[in-house]
C-alpha cells in the first residue's frame, strides 16, 4: 500500500525554471524511502508540493490518502522541510507548544518528543541560542509531535558535524522502525545507503530511477588482481563470457556470484597466473548515483 503517490507531478516557476518534471513517485507504507539527488535537482520543491506549500503546475499527488495540504492529510504527516523554522525569542519547549496548538496535539506530547530527540535538558533555552544540531533535533521533534504515519525529512543532517550526522542517522533509524513511513531527502549517499529501504533518484527535476538500494547497487561481483593481467583477462573472458568481465584500474571485475571465487583462483593458479588479490565487490551507491545522474565523481 502506498503512502505517497505522484503522477506527472510538475512544477514550473514563474521565471520559467522547470524545477520538477513529471515525477512518478511511490512510497510504500512502513518503508524508509530515500529521495536522492544532487543539490538543485528538485528534491525540496517536490517535498514542498507534497506538503501543499507549493502548488504543482500539473500532475497530481496523494499523500497519506489525501490531496497535498488537506488538513485531514496533514494531521497524519510530520515534516522537517529544509532548515527548521522556529521563533527565536521562544524556548525550544515553547516553540513545540505553539506547534502542538496548531496541530491540535495534547501538550503532554511535547515532553515525549523532547525525550525522543534527547533535548529535554536544553528545552528551556531560547531557540535563537541553539546550535545547528540542536535546531535540527528540535525540527525532528516538531515533526514527531503528531506521532505521524508519514515522516518527511528534508536533508536532516544538513549543517551537522560528523558526530551530529551519526546521531541524527541513528535517530532516523530509530523513529523509522515499526509501521511509520519515512521519506528522507538527501544528497548524502552514505546516509541513504545506511538508512533507506528504497530510493528514488532525481536529476534535473526528473525521477531517473526508483528501486531498492540492493537493486540500485546491482549484483555482487569479484575483483581479481593477477599477473600477467592480460592473460588473466583473456582467460576469465573465456570462462565467463565477454559481457561479465571488465578491466578496472589494473584489476579485473567479474559480474558473478562471489561464491565462485575459489574456482576462479584455482583455475588461474593452474594456468600459471599469480593472483595477488581476489575479493567480493559490489557497486557502491556512489557509483550507481553518479552513473544515474550523469555527474562525474569527485567533481
Amino acid at each position, binding site marked *: 500500500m502506498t503512502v505517497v503517490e505522484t503522477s506527472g507531478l510538475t512544477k514550473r516557476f514563474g521565471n520559467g525554471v522547470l524545477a520538477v518534471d513529471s515525477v512518478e513517485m511511490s512510497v510504500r507504507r512502513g518503508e524508509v524511502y530515500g529521495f536522492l539527488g544532487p543539490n538543485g535537482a528538485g528534491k525540496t520543491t517536490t517535498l*514542498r508540493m507534497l506538503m501543499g506549500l507549493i502548488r504543482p503546475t500539473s500532475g497530481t499527488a496523494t499523500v497519506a490518502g489525501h490531496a497535498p495540504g488537506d*488538513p485531514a492529510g496533514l494531521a497524519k504527516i510530520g515534516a522537517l522541510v529544509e532548515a527548521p523554522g522556529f521563533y527565536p525569542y521562544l524556548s525550544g519547549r515553547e516553540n513545540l507548544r505553539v*506547534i502542538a496548538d496548531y496541530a491540535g496535539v495534547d501538550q503532554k506530547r511535547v515532553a515525549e518528543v523532547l525525550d525522543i530527540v534527547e533535548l529535554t535538558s536544553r528545552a528551556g533555552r531560547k531557540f535563537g541560542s541553539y546550535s545547528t544540531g540542536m535546531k535540527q533535533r528540535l525540527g525532528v521533534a516538531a515533526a514527531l509531535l503528531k506521532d505521524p504515519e508519514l515522516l518527511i525529512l528534508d536533508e536532516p543532517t544538513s549543517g551537522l558535524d560528523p558526530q551530529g550526522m551519526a546521531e541524527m542517522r541513528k535517530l532516523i533509524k530509530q523513529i523509522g522502525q515499526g509501521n511509520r513511513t519515512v521519506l528522507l531527502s538527501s544528497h548524502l549517499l552514505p546516509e541513504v545507503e545506511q538508512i533507506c529501504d528504497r530510493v528514488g533518484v532525481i536529476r534535473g527535476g526528473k525521477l531517473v530511477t526508483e528501486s531498492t538500494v540492493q537493486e540500485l547497487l546491482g549484483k555482487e561481483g569479484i575483483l581479481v588482481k593477477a599477473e600477467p593481467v592480460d592473460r588473466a583477462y583473456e582467460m576469465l573472458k573465456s570462462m565467463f563470457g565477454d559481457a561479465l568481465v571488465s578491466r578496472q584500474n589494473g584489476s579485473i571485475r567479474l559480474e558473478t556470484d562471489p561464491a565462485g571465487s575459489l574456482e576462479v583462483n584455482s583455475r588461474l593458479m593452474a594456468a600459471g597466473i599469480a593472483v595477488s588479490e581476489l575479493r567480493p565487490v559490489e557497486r557502491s551507491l556512489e557509483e550507481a548515483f553518479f552513473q544515474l545522474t550523469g555527474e562525474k565523481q569527485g567533481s
Partner: protein
Amino acid sequence: MIASIKAEWRKNRMRPAFLVAAGLMAGVVALIYSLDWYQALHPVGADRAVTLAMLYPDQFVNNIMAAGFPLGAAVAVVLGALVAGSEYAWSTLKTTLIQRPGRLSTLGGRFVVLAAWMGILTAVLFAGGAAYSAVVALFEGHSIVWPAVFDIAKGIGAIWLVLAVSGSLGMALGILFRQSAAALGVGLIYLTVLQLIAVRFITTFNGGTYKWITNWFDGQNASALLSSFTSPVFGHAAAPTIGAQQAVLVLVAYVAFFVVVSASLLRQRDVT
C-alpha cells in the same frame, strides 16, 4: 480556527515587539500628560484654568484620542508588519502551514490575536490616561469625576478600530512583501507621508472638484473619528466633513479589505 488562535496567542503573548509597544504607548501618554501639565502650570498667554481642565479625569478620553492617530496607528502598522513579515524571515510560515489548520484558518487566528493586541494597547492608553489624569487632579486638589462609562467604551472602540485598520494594513503588507522591513517602511510612509500628499493634491486639483475622494482615505476617517470626541471645553474648530458614523463604517471596510487581501495572497501564493 480555535487551534490557530491558541497557537498565535501562545507565541505572541510575550513577544518582545508587543511588550515594547505597550511600554511605548504608556510612555507616550505619560509624556503628553507631563508636557501639558508643565505648560498648564507655566502658561504663556493661555488661560491656566482651561488648560488644566483638559487634564482632569472627566476629559481623559478626549486626551487619549490624540495618541490614536498617527502615533498609535504607526505603532500598529509596525506590529502588523512584524507579525506577518517575520513569519517569512524566520521560515516559520512553512512550519505553521504544515500543521493541521489550513492557510485561512492560520491567518484568521493571526488576525484575531493581532486585533486582541490592538485592544491591549488601547487599554494601556486608556489606563495610562486615566491614571495620569487622576494624579493631576489629586495634585491640583480637583475632584475626580470620570466620564460616563458609555463615553469611555466609545473611545476605546474608536482607538481600537483605528489601530486595527493600521495593524491589518501592516499585516497585508507583510504578506505582500514576504518580509517585515519593506512592509513597515511602506506602511509608515503611506500613513505619514503618502496619504497627506495625496489628500493635499486631490483637495487642490481642478479647483477641489474631487475633494470628496479624500473622505474615503483611512487617515482622514481615522482623524475624523478621533476628533469627534473633542470636548466642548476645547471648542470645535470647524464642522467636521466626515461624520463619526461614516468614519466607523469606512474604517471597518478598510479592515475587511486588508484582511481579504491578506487571505487572497496567502491562499494563492507558493510558500518557497
